[in-house]
């Protein structure tokens, strides 16, 4: 289980994340929604250990995460917003590298690569260079790299940006399969229909603060019109309509 308690991060006078708390249960997907600059990526970065919170803590299965080399980080998998892959290497070589970072080697690494590539439907393209892949294939490999070491918690930062409906649907199927396997998933997105389809709980964040943390039904109940309005309308009601550049 992933628990974030009262984390805060500032950059000079800018408060990027302020007193954010949330929990992600095993077998559940929590959607983290917010406009641009709301603090979603900073929150995910603090959970992944990329940046240290100034206040508060991140707990993995009840233990606080501390330090770059904390073995607890093995429990977390990150699927970053960028296609964090080496285009000049094959899918296999990419996974070999990412697996090695988590101490995977030999037969265990081979098995993990096979499982991850099979899950995302790229087993037949394992030896092809990533630069020959379509955008959707790269997104799926990006996902495979994040779950290669079989983490309990998966952080997905806008994992479907720029992919076709077929690949997006394949990624959704993968995520639903991971939920069934008891993984705790934290999913940031701008696409409301994705949150509606996948999320068991939705956290709305704006200006670095949590402004709502509820189930989909609970969020609908917060606005006039209830279940007759879309999640996007609920989101706009909660965060306002002013542009965030």
């Amino acid at each position, binding site marked *: 289980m992933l628990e974030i308690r009262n984390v805060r991060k500032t950059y000079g006078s800018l408060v990027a994340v302020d007193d954010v708390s949330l929990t992600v249960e095993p077998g559940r997907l929590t959607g983290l929604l917010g406009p641009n600059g709301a603090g979603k990526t900073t929150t995910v970065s603090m959970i992944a250990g990329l*940046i240290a919170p100034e206040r508060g803590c991140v707990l993995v299965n009840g233990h606080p995460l501390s330090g*770059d080399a904390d073995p607890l980080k093995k429990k977390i998998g990150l699927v*970053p917003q*960028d296609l964090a892959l080496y285009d000049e290497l094959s899918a296999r070589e990419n996974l*070999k590298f990412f697996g*090695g*970072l*988590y101490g995977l080697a030999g037969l265990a690494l081979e098995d993990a690569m096979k499982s991850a590539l099979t899950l995302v439907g790229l087993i037949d393209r394992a030896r092809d260079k990533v630069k020959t892949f379509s955008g959707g294939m790269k997104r799926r490999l990006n996902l495979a*790299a*994040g779950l290669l070491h079989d983490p309990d918690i998966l952080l997905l930062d806008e994992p479907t940006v720029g992919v076709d409906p077929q690949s997006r649907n394949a990624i959704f199927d993968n995520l639903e399969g991971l939920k069934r396997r008891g993984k705790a998933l934290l999913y940031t997105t701008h696409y409301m229909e994705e949150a509606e389809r996948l999320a068991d709980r939705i956290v709305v964040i704006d200006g670095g603060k949590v402004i709502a943390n509820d189930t989909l039904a609970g969020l609908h109940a917060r606005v006039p019109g209830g279940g007759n309005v879309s999640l996007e309308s609920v989101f706009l009601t909660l965060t306002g309509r002013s542009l965030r550049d």
Partner: protein
Amino acid sequence: MGLTAFLAMVRKDLLLFMSDRRAVIVAFAVPIFIGSFIGSITGGSGNRSDRPRVKVAIADEDGSTMSKAIVANALADASLTVTAVNGAEAKDRVRKGDSAVGIVIPPGFGDGSLQALRNRDAARPQLSIFYDPSRQIEAQLAQGVMTQHIIGALSTALNLPRPSPPFTVSTEPLTSGDNVPYNGYAHAFAGMGIQFLLFSALNLGIEMLVEREKGLWSRLRSAPVSRFLIVSAKIASITIISLMTLLVSFGFAMFMFKVRIAGSVIGFFAVAIACSMMAAGFGLLIAAIGNSPKTARGVSTLATLVMVMLGGAWVPTFVFPKWLQNVTVVVPVRWAVDGLDATTWRGLGLSSAVMPTLALLGFAAVFTAISLARFKWEEA
């Protein structure tokens, strides 16, 4: 787990390097090509017939027995390549750069110089010498050699014994051993090897900035690996690639141009490894202080070129003014070139490699320390 992660990072860097055709060409083929060219024009493999001669255009407008003897002596001189022309052509050849020196023997030169020799009050004939101002050393050499030939011709005309100095001169090139000629390729390949190993290190440093842009850095930092391990792996991979660059260059020079590690083999490898570690520190420094791959490439390429220029990789530092020779001890390339020269063609022992090795390790430590102090570890 630490070792597995370390090996995975090093392996990945080596795979990426080998998969980048441009990087491989820059690291291996270009230094061989440029080293071969520079080596061939700076002494070659020591074959005396390959030695450069001074190109001289001589116009004999006198046509006397003595002037013909002067031209004949010049034509037989191994240090000159003489072209017989008329006066206008002599000037024209020098102006166009076809000859370093043009000499015009004016009408009456033979008789006039003989009279001037017999009678101190007689008018002295004037020998005209034109020279290319960009080749003054060749002009001075040609003037000295021609003076010798004129005096020889005068002596012959006067039936005097050809003047010779009352001593003999022994000249000996101090290379790695007796009868071992100077091999210009040794210095050229040392210089170019160092230049291009720095370029390889520079590319790997910039690759770290590209990794940051592509989000790969985030993925790396999210893994349970320490900063020490990340930096160590990067130093190891840049060192290996830099060392390969240098050793492939030298291997080619050994095979093709008979360059030898005539001095300490241990010293040679100590300097080569220390130089590669210095390059690794340089690569890290670029990654630490560079804002973006594009700006970092421009600035670091300029810095590399200045370092190799001042370090004597292009031309030996002994041709620099004295003050510049003193100043360049703060340039790491200077130590690398001196160390490799000492252990190859100079044939010096291990002690000659100690200071260059220590200096290069010192530079590696300073570059790495600055990099770690400036490195941006966190990012949102």
